């Protein structure tokens, strides 16, 4: 029996992009369903009743929620091709730690840049660069966070690249000026077909945010 794989997602979501890259890396055929977050489908509400968020992967009728949990699920089910996590337990732990760091810090600190003003925004800018400097430190001189090859942490973080224009425009700063290694790393990741085909154009994401804000 063929696998039935459905992805409920939103094109601009950096979390959804993680799943799309993972599916592409494994060469998995799937049906993509675009969600309108202002008008969530009955399927989304049924498959993710707790959070009502995307992405949701539906594999043979059973839902998996939360982007990094979905990526780990994909890695475990389609384990014979293109491993996403390292094989050694200690390296896996480090990969999980840094992906968790991206989840805990990067989204919130970016979001504050377009939802706050004045002193709060200045504090958010400071936090943003502190967070990115830590990530730059972890990257070091390696081509990827995963070492010689693109891996789990790269997948978890690179999707935020499509939001860099949004962040830079609202934050009124240049990421490249402060964190050139991060930009160099992102561009290296974009040389991978799966990443290049998944990440939307930065300006399109910016227009999307402007529309959301009713501008």
């Amino acid at each position, binding site marked *: 029996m063929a696998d039935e794989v459905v992805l409920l997602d939103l094109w601009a979501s950096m979390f959804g992009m993680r799943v799309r890259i993972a599916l592409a890396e494994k060469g998995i055929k799937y049906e993509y369903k675009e969600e309108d977050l202002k008008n969530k489908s009955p399927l989304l509400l049924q498959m993710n009743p707790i959070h009502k968020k995307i992405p949701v992967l539906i594999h043979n009728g*059973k839902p998996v929620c*939360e982007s990094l*949990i*979905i990526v780990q*699920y994909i890695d475990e089910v389609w384990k014979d091709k293109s491993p996403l996590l390292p094989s050694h337990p*200690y390296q*896996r732990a480090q990969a999980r730690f840094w992906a*968790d760091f991206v989840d805990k810090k990067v989204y919130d600190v970016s979001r504050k840049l377009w939802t706050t003003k004045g002193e709060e925004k200045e504090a958010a800018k400071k936090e943003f660069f502190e967070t990115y400097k830590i990530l730059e430190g972890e990257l070091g001189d390696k081509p990827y966070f995963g070492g010689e090859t693109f891996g789990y942490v790269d997948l978890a973080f690179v999707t935020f690249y499509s939001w860099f224009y949004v962040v830079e425009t609202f934050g009124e700063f240049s990421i490249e000026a402060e964190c050139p290694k991060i930009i160099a790393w992102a561009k290296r990741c974009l040389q991978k077909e799966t990443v290049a085909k998944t990440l939307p154009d930065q300006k399109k994401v910016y227009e999307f945010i402007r529309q959301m804000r009713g501008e």
Partner: protein
Amino acid sequence: MEEVKLLGSWPSPFVHRVIWALKLKGIKYEYVEEEDVLYNKSEMLLKYNPVHKKVPVFIHGGKPIAESIVILEYIEETWPQNPLLPDDPHERAEARFWTKFEEDKIQKIFGFLMTAGEKQVAATKEAQEVLRIVEEHGLGEKKFFGGNNMGLADIAFGWIATSMEILEQAAGVKVLEANTFPRLKAWIQNFNEIPVIKESLPDRNALLTYYKARRVVFLSAAAS
């Protein structure tokens, strides 16, 4: 066998999780107490967890791992006996989902300890809403989050079983009122009867004193 060390702080629910996992799997370890983890972090802690500077830190053969859930997944992969996760990938994803839910919502559940008056009433209600979801969707009709046997999600929520009553006493409020969370209450009883859990329960009076003191700190910080 390589040396196993755990850097911890005795009241921390995050540290308890790692202790439970180590004991369940019969792993020998050296425990090192952080004397003053909040106000005077040791050199060892700053060296082994420079990013978050928090406990627990797990050190295996000299190599450190931070963040309790990351540590638990590592322990599970390194010592597969008495597994914390099922074999089926979908069930594993479910366990991880509820473990993450606990991580994301724990601040909301603790809110009632850190507030007073009307704010505490609101915080208590918020905590109960979260716990309602946990009981109905996470636990459901199962004995444990993990099914017939306890697993990763049970360990993540375990502090509710071992410490909720103490927290309620310290805060002077009832969150899990009688008859309002029957399945969660049954789970608490079952969880606390697991031999490893029973043996490792922290000193009740010491924990009560500790949380009362923390409450004072939270309330005066909020007032200033």
